[in-house]
């Protein structure tokens, strides 16, 4: 068994592209869930909004790729309003139900045959990211070239993705950190702790919640854009319930209501994921059998690791709901 390779994979995933777009999504989710106490269980829908926004530009509308940013934000705002208007006056559970349902419907719509001409059906969209990749080439990163040192050697294309992605993480991290120090951010935290008290101070709670939901959703849409540009395609089944839940797991792992938590959490999530995945793959080079019954084979590894990640979320919430960096007091809200 090559334990070195296992750690190498874990370290690469810790700073890899997956961790980076998860971190952007988690920063957005943190605004809603961590700071405002809004149960958005449909972050995948916002990510799909961003991804399809940039995907549609060249492939469907035939306009410049950069309009995609505006279109993606537009979709995300629309989704935020659609989910928020009926639910934000009600108790927290309703938002949870509507977001989880909307995310599923968004996925069904973008993969449907009916709307294939708009969203590309189950094949998704591709061939739109050239303009984005050209910028990387223009600053001197050859797509096929190798850059870096030791295990941190990336192709020019990957390095460009990582540079853009982590810059976005830094930008949104700073924006959210500043916002939450502002009076506006304090109102959000106050809403999380006691909505009625905030209302009695004359604040329009509904409006603040809506702003928080939309802001978090827009940040989430940037995660989707990054995913679409980095992979140079959009696949409808990327935006399943698992995506939402794993972003949430990453956030909870890092610690809610902390910008550092929302960035390092997804990195730890992917580091841990890659660690378990490579470790199991190393251990299970031939099917594990008990008698004639096959307990596990190498094709099961992905699924088993996902299962373990689900259990990780449960264990975290029971024993350490504040995650690694969080403050327990900030995870004690009741959401009524």
């Amino acid at each position, binding site marked *: 068994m090559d334990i070195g390779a296992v750690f190498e994979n874990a370290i690469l995933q810790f700073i890899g592209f997956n961790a980076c777009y998860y971190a952007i999504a988690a920063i957005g989710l943190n605004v809603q869930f961590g700071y405002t106490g809004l149960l958005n269980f449909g972050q995948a829908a916002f990510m799909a909004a961003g991804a399809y926004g940039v995907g549609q530009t060249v492939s469907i509308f035939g306009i410049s790729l950069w309009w995609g940013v505006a279109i993606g934000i537009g979709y995300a705002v629309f989704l935020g309003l659609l989910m928020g208007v009926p639910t934000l006056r009600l108790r927290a559970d309703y938002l949870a139900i509507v977001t989880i349902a909307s995310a599923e*419907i968004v996925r069904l719509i973008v993969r449907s045959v009916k709307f294939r001409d708009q969203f590309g059906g189950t094949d998704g969209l591709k061939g739109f990211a050239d303009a984005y990749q050209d910028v990387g080439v223009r600053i001197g990163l050859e797509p096929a070239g190798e850059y870096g040192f030791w295990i941190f050697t990336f192709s020019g294309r990957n390095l460009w993705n990582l540079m853009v992605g982590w810059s976005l993480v830094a930008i949104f991290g700073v924006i959210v950190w500043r916002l939450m120090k502002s009076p506006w951010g304090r109102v959000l935290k106050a809403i999380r702790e006691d909505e009625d008290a905030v209302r009695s101070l004359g604040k329009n709670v509904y409006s603040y919640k809506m702003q928080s939901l939309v802001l978090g959703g827009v940040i989430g849409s940037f995660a989707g854009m990054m995913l679409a540009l980095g992979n140079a395609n959009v696949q409808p089944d990327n935006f399943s319930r698992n995506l939402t839940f794993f972003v949430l797991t990453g956030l909870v792992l890092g610690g809610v209501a902390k910008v550092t938590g929302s960035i390092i959490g997804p990195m730890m999530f992917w580091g841990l994921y890659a660690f378990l995945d490579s470790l199991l793959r190393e251990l299970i080079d031939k099917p594990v059998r008990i008698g004639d019954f096959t307990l596990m084979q190498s094709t099961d590894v992905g699924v*088993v690791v996902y299962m373990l990640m689900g259990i990780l979320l449960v264990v975290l919430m029971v024993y350490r709901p504040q995650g690694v960096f969080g403050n327990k007091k900030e995870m004690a809200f009741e959401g009524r």
Partner: protein
Amino acid sequence: MTQPVVGTFKNVAGRQRAVQLLVGLLVALVTMAGFTSSAAAEGEAIRVQVKDQQRDAAGKTDNQPVVGVTVTVLDASGAEVGTAVTDDKGVALIPVPGKADYTVRIDESTLPDGLALSSESPAEQTVAGDSFVTATKIVNFFTGASQSESTSTTERIAQRFADGIRLGLIIAMCSVGLSLIFGTTGLTNFAHGEMVTFGAVTAYFFNDLGLHILIAAPIAVIAGGLLGYSADRFGFARFRARGVGLISQMVITLGLSIAAQNFFLWRFGGRDKPYLDYTNQVGSKIGPITITPRDLIVTIVAAVVLVCVALTIQYTRLGKATRAVSDNADLASSTGIDSSKVIRIIWVAGGALAAMGGVFRGLDEQVSWDMGTSLLFLMFAGITLGGLGSAFGALVGGFVVGILVETSTLLGVPTELKVAPALLILILILLVRPQGILGRAQRVG
């Protein structure tokens, strides 16, 4: 009333119980383990599956096997390698000499009357040698016939309603537990869909071992009740006693949902599978609708069970206690109702009903690893429509949502999107009457 428990969990006894829970999970893992044992093919073969995608009941394509179709496999030079006729599962297994390029051809004249290959499924498909992942390469043919064109509009409407009633009864059955758990503890259980899958999959497990489905089904229902019992005894009752917040508990259910779903995917596999009994029934005509005896019996049994549930809630002491706790747990406790016992009973009954719903759904459609998740959203729409937390609301709302989903295709909603109207109702209800049809208005916002 649960105060004394608070201290005990934090000490060593709590740790021990956590260990017991883990051991229990492991035991469950091992017992469930027999799924993927079969189907180890000796040599290379092409497995041709002919499916009818015509009927579809909740946003998922429902594939019914097409029996008695002749398929032929030709090699790269055009010589015939083998020919076979699909069996009662719509499957024809044709052994081939090795992993090479083949052409699979279906004889369209042998398709049953009224069925034709769908436009996306050509009569001839090529198989590349390097596309054999395992020894068996699966080739699918789909029929998407225009059966309904030959039937009148009234018949189509009646048929949709009949299917809708069946789906509605199943949704209602599955969501009673979801709604009552919410009503009594305030918890929105996102893993409830997995309790439905658990029932269906457990029944499949015993069915696959050789037990008739009529024996496997009750076992699955009992197992569902046990699952509900353990979920409360070893999980949520503890969390309540420890003062784990509702939001945290909700996130816990999300984690359980991911874990359980991937467990099913691992042990059951990604393909939809029908139960072994009552698979290939011919529908008989009752008035304007065509229904198989299996579906008819499912409808009747589901209706009877739900009437019993409704009577229990309305008239028995337990039912009254349930409604009291659901209404106001503290007040109920102060009048001498043991609310933690009531909650335990609700978890057991809810788990058993969800499992039963899963078995019925598996009979109606097929068993799949994510069947509960796809029903969960319809359950939410149903219980929100009926009134979150109310038992009768769950029954009425689930029923209405089922009928609406099935009949929405009549109004031109594409079959693949027919669950979308349920989201629309959900949003409309929340805008107009957030407490639902039967819920009591509360101060909101």
